[in-house]
Structure formats: structure tokens, C-alpha cells
């Protein structure tokens, strides 16, 4: 992300209280997931931020800046992680950033209610020997749970500055910045409090002495490298091995000795010892007073109740969809009015160029706007709320065993639900899953999920011209298809499923600014992907139309569309234009026959067209992101599976439905 992208503007509460001209410096925010890092980041950088990806990685990178006492400060929000192993992209990105980019100070954000677990990560940051300021966030929530943390004691135990904050209300942030600036200005060496048990500590020191004597070119501290090697960290071991393999042989010997003493692998010994230390520090610095059970805990009991939990989970999902479609319907009404000047021209009168530009390119813009504003934005807003409040983790918890039936675990529910809004960001968000296989399985299931465009198709064709019950039935049918196809895909892709390991964060009212920022970031990346495809795709189809290619093609498709699916010949054209976006099927149909579609189609045809339209292809944008994330091969297999399913199901309905309708 280019630095020139930053705009010079004032946007924070921390502006110009004091003037001096020092060099810019950088603060990195690091810590566990959902501890309020993003809230702090938003509070600090205000509107001055850029959200993108880390170069070459599918991990979100958020950077911003603020002015404090005349200094320009860059703030980087690192992804939320629990440890510095290398099992996830987030962990690799964070550790490489801290080790190589060397921020002037790292603010480690901790959740006050879960001090011990959070300190486990703090200790790892201290091992990296970066200038550190510890921020105990959400002290208000902790207080409700009867947990009071003594800042001073913690500061003394850790040997680094500690600040308590309630970031959502901005409390303590000024002090946090002051301490961070101070820590960056006079970098003190991190006190070596992290001593492991005698026999482990001795070996860490021996190994780090050896690394020191070999003078490796690696940009890490010797002690940290020694610890990582003994923890069996593949990255560090590989790098060291290239330079001086004898270090690794020595380390293997040491690790073996540790294993002999403790009867456990050395990585397990070290994790245990680090946690023991975290426990000691935490219990020394916090007081647990029993106050009555806070509301969030009582709510949690209901949300994960063996019976009520399913009810509330269903409520959350249905609520999300109802909200989206109620608001969406309302907004779309307004927008359609606003765009009522947009009427497709008849190319026979206006000429091909006008048709391509007006019907095609501009039509693509209109279609994009009328999808994103009414449906996608409200959906993202509510989804972000459900995510950040912790409701979604409860739903994932309840649904885990069902998700296992299609080879996924509870967390995969998040992308799947996203798929109800739009497949594209949903597939993007499969990144939260552990393995490529799981991401593929999830993406595959998502391409069948009834996204906003499919819903419009179902509503526009079936709810209006057949009845609402058939529309609902199609929704149910779609769920069944997701399940069946998911099962088939699971059987077709051998491999082991990863189990669920997920933190159940405290339920809370999420920060409004975080919700807005997240919604905007998601919407923006969707716009970048979707708009060009809409505009170009729609213009291309108009061009084909003008060249008279579409009619022969739809005649060519007639055996399929007319013979097998029992649709009119022009359905071929509909399906071609629908590849850009599913609602184009509806729009084009209107342009062919006028608003009363029942003149052209009978109820069976409405339903069959809706089914085929719903299933036959993921739209162009979805295919584009499938290619981007999984490559051509996987994308074509998924597309092929969609197409086959559409033909099979559509054909069966075309044959059976006449007996019922």
C-alpha cells in the first residue's frame, strides 16, 4: 500500500497540543483476537486509515496515522493472534512485521477479563525484545465480572509500562499514547523476567550463546531464536540450518535432554512453563471479587442452551436475513425510483453503440448500485454487529455438529452465512478456515447459497407470479441442495477435517465505529471486484446482442432449454446474460415481455427458470474470486458442478411440476 495514499488531514483528538519536529514513528497494535485492537486503532487513527492486504498474503492489513504533540505517528493494526508459532498466515505476518519492520513501539492490547491467557502472548512479545507498552483493555467488562487489575503491580511484574483503557469510550487512550511515545523515545531493554525453569533456561542460554558465536545474519534476537528452535519452529530452524547446521544439531541434542528430564517434548515443556509464568503474574496482579453474574453471562446461558440455543441461533440467522430484505426492499424501492430514468433503449432504433454504452455499461453501474446499496450494505452492517458482539460464535458453537456433516466445523458457518448476502465476500472470508481443503469445501457450498441476487430472482419470478409458498419452498430446496452437494464434495475430497478450537469471547455491545469501518472495508473491496465485471460484462452482452450472436446461441441451446427444461427459446439469452448477474435474468425478461411476465411463462416455467437461474452458474464475480483464491482448475470444477446440478434439478422439476400445478 503506497504511503502517498495518506491524506494530510486532521482527524483525531490528539492533534497538535504540543509542537516539536521529530521524525515520524510507528506504533504496532498486537494482541489476541477480539480484545478491542480495532477499536483502539479506529480511535487513534480516526478517518486516516487504509485497509488492504499484506503484500502477497490474504491477511488484512490496516494502517493509519495520527498526530500527537506535533509528531506524525503511523499506526499498524496487526491481526489478532494467540501465539507466534507459524500455523497461520496471521502469525507469520505479525512476527515478520515485528521482527523485520521493527516498529518503534508495540502496544500489546489485552482483554482484562482473560488476563492470564493474554499474558501468554505478552510474554512472547517480550521475548522478541521489542519496545513494549501493555494496554489492559475492556477493564469495565472485567469489573462487571468482579475482576480488578492492579496496573502498578502488573507494571512491576512485567517491567514494561501498563495502561488500563476502555477503548470504546476512549478512556485511557491519551495516556496510552503518551506512554507509547515515551517508550519509543527512550527504548529500554526489556528486562529479562521471562526465565524458564532451571534446566530449560540453562539450555536456552547455552543455545543462544552458540547462536551468538556463530553470528547468523538473521534479524532476530539470539535468545528468541534459541527459544523458537527449542520450540521446534520450522521457519527459524530452516533459516538457521542454511547458515550453520551445527546449531540445529546442538539444539536437537538440547531438546532431547529437555525431553528426557520432563518426559514431554520440549515445545510442550516451554508452553507449560510460559503459562505457569503468565498464571503467576496474572494472579499477582488481579483480584477476583465475586459480584453477581453479569447480564452477558446470563444471556450466554440462553444462547448456548441445549434447546433454546437452537432457537436463538435460528433467530439470529433469520433475523439477519429478514433485516436485510426488509431494509433492502425499502431502499431498493427508493433507488428504483431514482433510477427510473434508466430505461433500456431498443438497439434497433438507437443503434448498437448507444445500446452497448447505455444498456450495457451504464446498466451495469445501475445494477451494481441497486445491489450494493440496498442489500449488501445493510447485510454487512448487521453481520458485523453479530460478529463483533460475539453472537456469531454462539451460533457457530450450536451449529458445529451440523457443519461436520459437510466436513466443516462451526466456524465455517460464518462464510456460509455471508454467502446469503453475496458469494464474493463470503468466499473471501473462507480464509478463517484452517486448511485449503476446508476452504474449498466451504467455497463450494457457498456457491449454492441463495445470495441477494438469487433471492431477488426467486422473489421476482416465483413469489410474485406463482406464490410466496413456492418461493419459500425454493429456499428450502436450496438448503437441501447445499447439504447434498456438500456431502458429495466431502466424499470427493479425501482428507481429514480439522476440529473446532474457538474462543468464546464475552458477549458485548460492539463499537459502532468498528462496525462502520468494517462494513465500509468489506463494501469497498466488493465494489472494486464487482463493478468492473458488471460494467464490462453487461456491455459485452449488449455487444453480442447487437452483433446478433445471442439468438443463434439461444437456438443452439434450445434442446437444453426447450427440450429438457421446458422453457421458451429466449431462456437461452436469459441464462447468458444472467451469468453476469442473476437479476439480469429478471431484467432482460422484463425487457422482452414487459412487466406482466405471466403472459410469457406458466407457473412451472417460472419455478424451473428460478431454479435453473439460481443454480446454473456462480456469477462472473464469484467465478473471478474462485479463480483468484483457488485457481482455474478448482473454479471450473465448482462451476461445472453448479451447472450440472441446475440441469438435473431443473429438468426433474420441469417433468414433475406439471402434475402438481
Amino acid at each position, binding site marked *: 500500500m503506497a504511503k502517498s495514499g495518506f491524506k494530510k488531514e486532521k482527524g483525531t483528538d490528539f492533534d497538535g497540543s504540543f509542537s516539536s519536529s521529530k521524525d515520524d514513528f510507528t506504533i504496532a497494535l498486537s494482541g489476541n483476537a477480539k480484545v478491542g485492537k480495532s477499536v483502539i486503532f479506529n480511535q487513534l487513527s480516526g478517518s486516516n486509515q487504509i485497509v488492504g492486504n499484506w503484500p502477497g498474503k490474504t491477511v488484512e492489513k490496516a494502517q493509519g496515522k495520527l498526530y500527537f504533540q506535533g509528531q506524525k505517528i503511523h499506526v499498524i493494526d496487526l491481526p489478532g493472534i494467540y501465539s507466534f508459532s507459524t500455523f497461520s498466515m496471521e502469525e507469520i505476518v505479525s512476527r515478520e512485521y515485528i521482527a523485520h519492520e521493527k516498529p518503534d513501539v508495540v502496544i500489546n492490547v489485552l482483554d482484562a477479563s482473560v488476563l492470564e491467557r493474554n499474558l501468554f502472548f505478552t510474554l512472547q512479545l517480550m521475548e522478541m525484545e521489542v519496545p513494549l507498552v501493555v494496554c489492559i483493555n475492556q477493564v469495565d467488562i472485567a469489573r462487571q465480572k468482579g475482576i480488578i487489575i492492579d496496573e502498578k503491580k502488573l507494571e512491576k511484574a512485567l517491567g514494561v509500562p501498563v495502561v488500563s483503557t476502555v477503548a470504546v469510550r476512549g478512556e485511557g487512550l491519551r495516556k496510552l499514547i503518551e506512554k507509547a511515545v515515551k517508550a519509543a523515545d527512550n527504548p529500554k531493554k526489556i528486562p529479562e523476567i521471562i526465565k524458564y525453569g532451571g534446566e530449560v533456561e540453562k539450555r536456552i542460554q547455552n543455545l543462544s550463546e552458540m547462536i551468538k558465536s556463530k553470528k547468523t545474519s538473521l534479524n532476530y534476537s539470539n535468545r528468541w531464536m534459541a527459544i523458537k528452535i527449542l520450540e521446534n519452529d520450522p521457519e527459524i530452524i530452516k533459516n538457521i540450518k542454511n547458515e550453520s547446521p551445527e546449531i540445529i544439531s546442538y539444539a536437537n541434542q538440547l531438546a532431547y535432554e529437555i525431553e528426557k528430564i520432563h518426559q514431554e517434548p520440549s515445545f510442550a515443556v516451554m508452553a507449560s512453563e510460559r503459562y505457569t509464568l503468565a498464571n503467576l503474574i496474572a494472579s499477582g496482579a488481579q483480584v*477476583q471479587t465475586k459480584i453477581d453474574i453479569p447480564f452477558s453471562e446470563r444471556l450466554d446461558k440462553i444462547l448456548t442452551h441445549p434447546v433454546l440455543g437452537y432457537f436463538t441461533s435460528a433467530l439470529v440467522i433469520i433475523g439477519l436475513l429478514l433485516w436485510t430484505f426488509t431494509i433492502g426492499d425499502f431502499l431498493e424501492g427508493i433507488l428504483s425510483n431514482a433510477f427510473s430514468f434508466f430505461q433500456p433503449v431498443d438497439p434497433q432504433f438507437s443503434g448498437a453503440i448507444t445500446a452497448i454504452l447505455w444498456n450495457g455499461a451504464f446498466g451495469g453501474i445501475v445494477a451494481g448500485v441497486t445491489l450494493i446499496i440496498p442489500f449488501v450494505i445493510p447485510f454487512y452492517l448487521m453481520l458485523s454487529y453479530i460478529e463483533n458482539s460475539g453472537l456469531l460464535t454462539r451460533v457457530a458453537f450450536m451449529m*458445529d455438529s451440523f457443519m461436520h456433516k459437510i466436513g466443516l466445523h462451526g466456524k465455517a458457518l460464518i462464510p456460509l452465512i455471508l454467502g446469503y448476502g453475496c458469494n464474493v465476500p463470503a468466499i473471501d472470508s473462507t480464509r478463517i478456515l484452517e486448511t485449503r481443503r476446508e476452504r474449498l469445501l466451504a467455497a463450494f457450498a457457498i456457491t449454492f447459497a441463495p445470495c441477494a441476487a438469487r433471492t431477488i430472482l426467486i422473489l421476482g419470478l416465483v413469489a410474485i407470479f406463482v406464490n410466496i409458498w413456492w418461493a419459500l419452498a425454493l429456499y428450502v430446496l436450496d438448503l437441501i441442495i447445499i447439504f447434498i452437494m456438500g456431502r458429495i464434495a466431502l466424499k470427493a475430497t479425501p482428507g481429514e477435517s480439522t476440529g473446532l478450537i474457538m474462543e468464546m469471547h464475552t458477549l458485548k455491545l460492539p463499537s459502532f465505529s468498528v462496525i462502520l469501518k468494517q462494513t465500509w472495508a468489506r463494501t469497498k473491496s466488493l465494489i472494486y471486484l464487482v463493478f468492473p465485471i458488471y460494467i464490462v460484462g453487461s456491455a459485452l452482452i449488449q455487444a453480442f446482442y447487437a452483433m446478433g450472436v445471442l439468438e443463434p446461441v439461444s437456438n443452439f441451446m434450445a434442446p437444453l432449454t426447450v427440450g429438457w427444461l421446458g422453457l421458451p427459446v429466449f431462456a437461452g439469452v436469459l441464462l447468458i446474460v444472467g451469468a453476469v448477474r442473476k437479476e439480469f435474468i429478471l431484467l432482460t425478461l422484463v425487457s422482452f415481455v414487459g412487466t406482466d411476465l405471466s403472459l410469457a411463462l406458466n407457473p412451472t416455467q417460472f419455478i424451473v427458470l428460478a431454479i435453473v437461474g439460481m443454480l446454473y452458474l456462480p456469477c462472473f464475480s464469484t467465478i473471478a474470486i474462485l479463480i483468484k483464491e483457488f485457481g482455474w482448475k478448482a473454479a471450473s470444477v465448482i462451476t461445472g458442478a453448479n451447472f450440472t446440478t441446475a440441469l438435473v434439478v431443473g429438468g426433474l422439476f420441469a417433468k414433475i411440476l406439471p402434475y402438481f400445478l
Partner: protein
Amino acid sequence: MSDNESLSENIEEYLEVIYKVSLEEKKPVTTSNISKNLNIAPGSVTQMLKKLDKRGYVHYSPYKGAVLTEKGLKVASKVTRKHRLLERFLNDILKLKKDKIHSEACQMEHTLSDDAERALCQLLEQPDQCPDEAPIPACDFKFDTCEECLERKHEDVEEIGSRDENLISIISLGENEVGRVSFIRGDYKVIRRLMDMGITIGAMVSVIKLAPFKGPVEVSVRGSKLALGRDIAKNVFVELIDCESKDEDGALAHG
């Protein structure tokens, strides 16, 4: 049983020879050639080749000879690899006489496990030739590079802690019961992940909730709440702690 074993050994011997000869001659391997190499009557060889064809290891046509199928090639290169690794081992490490090596390796190759093959390769530092300079085929392990194979040596860990009869799985913990984690079994990455999240040996765990339909388990550990899939949770074993003597840091738990 032993019939089966000798049959599969037999198949491996045949495939090995076809593999070797076809690499040298680059055309179908004739019955007479195999017969010469294995010192078996041509009639029996033809019989066997027909059998191998039926099982999908080779394509056999009379008068022309046999060509390895993909399936056959896999078996053949695997056993050839084991054979040549063993030759190296017998030669380099055990310093046996060169003329003994071949027949010795022929005996051992069929019983050498894949784990032993991998260890042997690492011990010999990924040799690419056997003592008489024939190339050693590449392994069929799912590693991208030899470095990765070496690095992952430690990742074979599939349990930590010590198994004891008194231990129970956390899914058998009742509500309000507390256990001390004593033994974890599972995939290396899962174990590491669990430890990062605070489920280390010695940690105090209690169960908050078991989701129905074999759903996940919500546990409380080190002040945080975690949801663990049932398959992961049932492999975490704890020692039940008497509630009376329960203590924050668990030091007094033994009572």
C-alpha cells in the same frame, strides 16, 4: 497369510525387475529377460505376468512383454527405493562386503516400513545413488522438500503428557467438576493450538457446556472460555480434582 505375504513379495520382486530393465532398455520387458534376471522358468514368468496384468500392475502382451502401469510403477519405485537405501545403509554404515549387500537388501526391502524408510533416508542424508551408482527413486511422502521432511521429524508427536488409568476425558467431566489436564492426544498442530490457547499439561479445566448432537464442548480454562470440537475434546484427558481442595493456581490440588 504367509501365502499372501510371499505373493506380495513375489509381486514386488517382479515389479522391481521390470522397473530396472525398462529403465535400461526403454521398451517392453520380455519374458525371457525377466526369467534371466529372477532365475525363474519362462513359463512361470508368463503365468505371473498375466496375474500382474489382471491386477493392474502391468500391461502384458504375449511376444512383446510387460510395461508397468501407473499403479505398478508406484510399487516398483517404492520397493526399488527401499532396496537401494538399504544397500547404502549396509555399505556405508554397517560396512558389509559389497557382494553380500544386494541379496541382503533383497530380503529386507519387503519388510521395511515407510517410517523406517524415512528415517533411513534422513540418516543417510538423502542419498541419490546406491553403492553401484544406480539412482535411488524419489520418495512418495507428502513433503515438498527434504528440508520439510527433516523439519517435520518432530511433528510426529501425537500425544503429550502421560496416560494413566485414573484419567478421564474432559467430555466426561460433569458440570462444576474441575480437572487437571494430564494427557492430550491428537494431531501435532491441534496439540500446539490447544497449548497456545492455554490447555497445557497441568492446566485446570472445567466444562461449561456440552452441545447436543455430539456438538462441541465449551470449557473454561485460565479464565477464558473455549469451544472445542467433540473429536478434539474427547482426546484431552484430565485428572479429576476434588472440588473442596480446588485452588486458583492448582498447587494445592493434590490435597
